């Protein structure tokens, strides 16, 4: 199945590449300098490959729907795989920014890659994040040329903390891997959770069997279990949680990362009834979102994930800024000002940037259910936060 999917997407990529020169000819005004290049550094291999794959596909969908253009200007999306290695991300950034002179970049999935590449990118180009939102770039270290159009890393965890408190669930059992992002995630949850933390359990980052932790959960009998276990870790945990018979006893919560379309098909029915947070949802009743979900499914024969929605939104955002500056992305102050206006129809609905160039947006709670066609999907059940801003914005010196 994976092999088949790889082949089709490669063929599509070749098709897109072949179509680009033709589109360039159709736009004589820009033809002398070739299409405007947008750099996409993302993770396309290894355990995080599904995330980068969805961001790229979401982004490319906007370009394709507009006939190879963003903001009316023909563009070429230059994609490179960082394989989740910070040193690769930095080397690719150097190549794109210094050699190819690309001035608009996006796509990095993981915060450690982002932090390695930022010092190379930001002095020379504008970066608009479609995923990674490390706190280092949101507070004192914020930057006029760095935007995040997805979320600050803590946001989705904060939303669950808030929702669990609202629901009157008093005793929470928290589980995350023992590494910086795992500890940050639980800090984010605790920032808005007002009840008692029964246990803060840190597991090995390579751990795949959670039997001991599940037994501890059963013995503690909490009101809620919160997990931040990215990728395959989460898949194993959710399956084992169901197998241990805990799903019927204690509701399981997590950020949307552990419960979206990149993992739900693999987990299947075991994820039903779990709650998770996201700034976007498949069923948000907005015309822009309906169009996104329908065209994505028609193009790629699968449902989009939140990562795909983020890639799609970043493409729309970049398009809006290109249109406002008439393609003169080299005037960085003007381009950044145009990006900051966020003059685009986000698939998540209301969206604007705070002073630190990070989102002010709603965060929704979703429940995993079966849809009419028997697919395991998310249904929006509540709004945890309206117009939520991250905790670091006050430390940023940039003007609003």
């Amino acid at each position, binding site marked *: 199945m*994976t*092999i088949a999917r*790889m082949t089709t997407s490669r063929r599509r990529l070749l098709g897109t590449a072949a179509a680009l020169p033709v589109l360039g000819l159709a736009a004589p005004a820009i033809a002398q300098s070739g299409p405007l290049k947008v750099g996409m550094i993302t993770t396309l*291999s*290894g355990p995080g*490959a*599904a995330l980068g794959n969805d961001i790229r596909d979401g982004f490319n969908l906007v370009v394709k729907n507009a006939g190879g253009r963003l903001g009316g200007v023909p563009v070429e999306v230059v994609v490179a795989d960082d394989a989740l290695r910070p040193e690769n991300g930095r080397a690719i950034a150097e190549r794109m920014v210094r050699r190819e002179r690309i001035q608009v970049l996006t796509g990095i999935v993981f915060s450690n890659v982002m932090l390695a590449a930022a010092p190379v990118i930001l002095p020379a180009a504008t970066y608009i994040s479609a995923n990674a939102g490390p706190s280092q770039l949101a507070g004192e270290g914020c930057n006029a040329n760095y935007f995040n159009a997805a979320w600050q890393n803590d946001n989705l965890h904060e939303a669950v903390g808030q929702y669990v408190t609202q629901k009157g669930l008093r005793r929470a059992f928290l589980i995350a891997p*023992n590494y910086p992002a795992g500890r940050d995630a639980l800090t984010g949850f605790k920032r808005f959770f007002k009840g008692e*933390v029964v*246990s*803060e*359990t*840190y*597991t*090995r980052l*390579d751990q*795949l*069997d959670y*039997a*001991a*932790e599940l*037994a*501890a959960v*059963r*013995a503690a009998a909490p009101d809620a279990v919160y997990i931040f276990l990215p990728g*395959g870790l989460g*898949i*194993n945990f959710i*399956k*084992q949680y169901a*197998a*241990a*018979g805990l799903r019927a006893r204690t509701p399981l919560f997590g950020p949307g990362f552990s419960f979206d379309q990149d993992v739900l098909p*693999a*987990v*299947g029915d075991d994820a039903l009834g779990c709650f998770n947070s996201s700034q976007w949802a498949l069923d948000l009743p907005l015309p822009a979102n309906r169009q996104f979900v329908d065209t994505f499914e028609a193009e790629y024969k699968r449902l989009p994930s939140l990562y795909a929605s983020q890639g799609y939104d970043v493409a729309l955002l970049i398009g809006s800024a290109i249109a406002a500056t008439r393609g003169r992305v080299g005037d960085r102050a003007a381009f950044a000002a145009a990006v900051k206006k966020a003059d685009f129809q986000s698939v998540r609905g209301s969206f604007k940037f705070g002073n630190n160039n990070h989102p002010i947006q709603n965060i929704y709670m979703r429940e995993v259910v079966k849809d009419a066609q028997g697919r395991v999907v998310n249904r929006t059940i509540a709004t945890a936060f309206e117009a939520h801003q991250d905790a670091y914005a006050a430390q940023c010196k940039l003007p609003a």
Partner: protein
Amino acid sequence: MTATLFVEQTLNGLQFGVMLFLMAAGLTLIFGIMDVINLAHGSLYMAGAFVGATITARTGSFTLGVLAGAAAGALIALILELTIIRRLYARDHLDQVLATYALILTFNEGVKVLWGPAPIFLSAPAALAGTIEVLPGIPYPTYRLVVIAAGIGAALFLGWLIGRTRAGMLIRAGTTNRETVQALGVDVGLLFALVFAVGGALAGLAGVMAGPILAVQVGMGEQILILAFVVVVVGGLGSVRGAMAGALLVGLTDTWARALLPTLLRGLLPPASADQVAANLGSVAVYLLMAVVLAVRPQGLFPRHA
């Protein structure tokens, strides 16, 4: 600490222990009889898991998948012995480590080519998907109980094979004094191939049984291989009895450390740092156990030259 938690964590430790035993039994026999360090033993575990997952998906029968996984482990082990390992018997351990490490890389890339890089998530068969009340008020996943039973079954079979059959007698003789067995005219080549195949079958069985609990993915063998080596060292090289004792000890230590340390440390430290210290200590508990055993009984718990 409640009785529920005690029973459940003990079962968890047993389940992890029998999985480790299936891996360690082959490893310790191969090391004990042929004096070969076979790092590629984890690859047999991975191969068993992938073949088992494929057959389960094709036929819809998990039982067939388990049999196919074990058979694949045995067959691949046999082919490896006949083509590559056989040339390594006379070499020193460093050459063996190098050659079998190369096999790990080859197997991992081969599996990527055949099955792709994405993990396969197996589900336990529907009949074993729920929980059983092992004691009143203590539900436990049925599938994990089946794993424990299968592991004990495999241990009994191995005990019979080694203790009661002629082939087993030769294996025991081989671990004690290989040269004498050779001098008595026993077909050592055949014996070695048999041991390798049995070890491979157990590793393949472990791999496919692990499938529904963990995930079937490239590199899954290396993770368990390291712990299997710890088991072999703790139990004593070449001793199947030692492998059983070592496996259960390691399985229970790992599970108990993860289960108990947070509660214990919360009495001594503030909660946040207690959880942090517990996580760090829990992940090294098994190696502390090994260090203690090495200090007290350098030959392991059941040394072969008793």
